[in-house]
């Protein structure tokens, strides 16, 4: 199919889809309407389990099994990226060059790194009370570590990033989620049922298993994203196809 004909084919199909979409939108409940049967029920369920953040309650209590599936998707994606982006025969590792970073940027990075880690952990820990949770906080923690790459250089990042440890952390997060689920079964309830004491609404320990699952997800996401970004960074900075005039890019980006 030529480019031209493909475009026309798309435009025709898009017109049909657009018409269907508008027809569907007209039949949807109005934006801002008051009819939310599922929402009302899940809010009631969240409050019954003393979880202040109803979204966290949906994710880690009412739909905990679905979140397990999602976590497994993340796990599989990290695994896939590790396999796809490994060093293959014919490639060699290139020692990353030290980078020259302006002192102001370096100081900012050193100042921000602990603050960012703290913010990330705060977001994970308060997931059941305030907006946030394992997914968001985990990504913030993972991004925070990469401040070291932009503020110092890749070697500094590698020093605080023993990849094997993060891979283990990724697995441990996934495992902790499943173990929590099985523990609920051993306690005589269903898989991933909320069996822990619920506590008082709005406190850090409220929500029962939500707290545990939240932490497990936080750990998996943080470690998984670190591993994921490490694979990409290794490809972009370290791994060379074959002997050649490399290091130019690293030297250039290192400024």
């Amino acid at each position, binding site marked *: 199919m030529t*480019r031209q004909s493909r475009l026309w084919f798309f435009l025709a199909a898009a017109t049909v889809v657009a018409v269907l979409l508008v027809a569907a939108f007209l039949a949807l409940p109005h934006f801002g*309407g008051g009819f939310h049967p599922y929402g009302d029920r899940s*809010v009631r369920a969240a409050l019954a389990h003393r979880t202040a953040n109803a979204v966290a309650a949906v994710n880690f209590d009412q739909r905990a099994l679905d979140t397990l599936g999602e976590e497994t998707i993340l796990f599989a994606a990290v695994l896939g990226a590790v396999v796809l982006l490994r060093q293959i025969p014919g490639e060699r590792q290139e020692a990353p060059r030290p980078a020259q970073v302006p002192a102001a940027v370096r100081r900012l990075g050193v100042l921000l790194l602990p603050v960012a880690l703290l913010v990330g952990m705060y977001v994970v820990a308060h997931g059941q009370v305030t907006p946030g949770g394992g997914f968001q906080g985990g990504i913030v923690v993972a991004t925070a570590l990469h401040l070291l790459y932009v503020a110092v250089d890749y070697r500094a990042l590698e020093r605080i990033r023993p990849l094997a440890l993060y891979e283990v952390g990724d697995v441990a997060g996934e495992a902790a989620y499943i173990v929590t689920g099985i523990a609920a079964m051993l306690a005589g309830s269903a898989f991933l049922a909320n069996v822990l004491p619920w506590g008082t*609404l709005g406190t850090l320990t409220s929500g029962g298993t939500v707290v545990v699952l939240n932490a497990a997800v936080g750990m998996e996401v943080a470690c998984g994203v670190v591993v994921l970004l490490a694979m990409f960074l290794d490809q972009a900075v370290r791994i060379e196809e074959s002997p050649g005039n490399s290091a130019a890019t690293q030297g250039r980006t290192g400024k």
Partner: protein
Amino acid sequence: MTLLPYLVAGWIFLIGLYGLVTSRNMIHAVGCLSVTQSSTYVLLLAIGYRDGGTAPVYADAPTDARVVDPVVQALTLTDIVVGATVTALLLALIIQLHKRHGTLDPDELSELKG
């Protein structure tokens, strides 16, 4: 206003697909895919919105507050994280593709195959 968010979601979906269809660079196509994905976020959250509602987070709100739908928010949250991992996996595949074939133009790639 009753229809605008839905229409915007539809527009983002279609423009993202347009980018995918006409893309001549796989990395650009992945970017377009993440645009297309964001239309689902807009649609889901638009359905869950309630006029005058507030977030279903009771840390700083009374328990009888009028709140928006938490179920769609949880769905969207899942959607975003899965979207990011899909992007990561696709980009990893693209790096492999470029190593093998030295090009990222989908048309050239399909010629190579045939």
